[in-house]
């Protein structure tokens, strides 16, 4: 538990520091997805600090709790960059830090279109004990998670992950389709996966007063994700697939809460995953940091 405690402490300390340093929270408009991405990027200069969990059931072994922290920054209106720290607890075994990820999303088209592409590039340096299940790739199956932490963490994965995100907003619905290709930087073959999502706010009109429980702040959706094999054995077979209803609650104070139960669709999937998380969006973070280094310009 030591690592988890330290991670939590770091996260809380970061949020506290930022809150006390005068930066303003701003209301996020987060989609409810945990795996799929849409084309909406972080607003420029805003930092979103996030914590997410995945509780997973495991046949033939102990259940687990994967968790990760995300620092999502809107570098420009067309480029969002994110840094992740991952960890997990396997019940009856141990808690381990499993690695980090650095992800970038770039929006190549300036305007809104019927289909809006976003290019996604991620480098990850994680060990074999990682259980956050942020995506399913290749022939990922439930039995991959059976190895004890001490053994699994000896395997080191340095991977480059590319995604093509195609997302549309139509009549207040969001529809998104993600295709992913992952290359372990050792000699492993390219692996593939997918995620699909659809979501909509529970109310499309804004209320005339500030309120936390107004339906406009809730976005409900569903996502489906799974593997597509690798370059030698492409397809939906011998890999895992999930369907997951999801709900996001975007509070005017800058907090967002999400929850998503996921259900395995075949025998190779975990039967049940429960994901939840919280995030806090801070407006003008980049400007404040820049001010610290260059002084006031009046």
């Amino acid at each position, binding site marked *: 538990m030591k690592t988890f405690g330290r991670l939590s402490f770091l996260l809380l300390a970061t949020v506290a520091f930022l809150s006390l340093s005068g930066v303003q929270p701003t209301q996020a408009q987060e989609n409810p997805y945990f795996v799929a991405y849409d084309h909406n990027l972080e607003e420029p200069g805003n930092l979103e600090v996030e914590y997410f969990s995945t509780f997973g059931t495991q046949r033939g072994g102990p259940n687990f709790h994967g968790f990760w922290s995300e620092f999502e920054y809107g570098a420009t209106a*067309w480029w969002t960059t994110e840094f992740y720290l991952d960890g997990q607890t396997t019940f009856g075994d141990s808690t381990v830090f499993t690695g980090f990820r650095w992800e970038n999303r770039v929006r190549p088209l300036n305007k809104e279109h019927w289909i809006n592409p976003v290019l996604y590039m991620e480098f990850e340096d994680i060990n074999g004990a990682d259980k956050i299940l942020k995506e399913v790739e290749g022939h990922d199956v439930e039995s991959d998670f059976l190895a004890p932490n001490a053994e699994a963490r000896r395997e080191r994965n340095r991977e480059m992950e590319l995604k093509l995100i195609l997302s549309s907003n139509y009549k207040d619905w969001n529809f998104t389709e993600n295709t992913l290709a992952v290359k372990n930087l050792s000699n492993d073959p390219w692996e593939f996966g997918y995620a699909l999502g659809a979501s909509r706010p529970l109310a499309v009109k804004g209320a005339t007063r500030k309120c936390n429980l107004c339906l406009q702040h809730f976005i409900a959706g569903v996502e489906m994700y799974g593997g597509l094999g690798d370059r030698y054995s492409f397809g939906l077979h011998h890999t895992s697939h999930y369907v997951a209803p999801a709900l996001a609650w975007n509070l005017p104070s800058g907090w967002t809460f999400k929850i998503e139960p996921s259900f395995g669709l075949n025998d190779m999937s975990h039967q049940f995953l429960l994901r939840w998380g919280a995030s806090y969006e801070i407006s*003008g973070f980049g400007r404040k940091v820049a001010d610290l280094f260059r002084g006031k310009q009046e």
Partner: protein
Amino acid sequence: MRIGTLAGITGLLFAGLAVLGAVSAKTETPEQESVYAELSKAPEKYRNRVNPLANDPDAAAAGRVLFEEHCEDCHGQQATGGKKAPSLRAKEVQEATPGTIFWILTNGVVRKKMPVWSKLPEPQRWQLVSYIKSLGPLEAAGNKSAEKR
């Protein structure tokens, strides 16, 4: 992994963010003459769109709440502009058609840091248009803000 390594990673993260912040701040060049130029690029079919909530008595009030939640940090409490974004009370904005403002909200001005707000449902974008139009022009504030940029 030791706490030192974790602290190092976190430090690197913030150093990176600081560099990004500084770079993005440095690229804020004065573009006084083109702050509102994007308004003229709205396609005709958008420019001529009528605000479907024009007769909704609550639209401007709801738009004000949305403005406070999503826009005021950049455009200022009174929509008179700020460090990051121009005044919405300049005559260029106030004289623009509702459809034009809706088009800007929907598409953003991505290369000039105005985000795409298509993630807000259409009725909420129209409520924002109602609020912005209800403010009326404030010429001096508009010019002051544009000068700052």
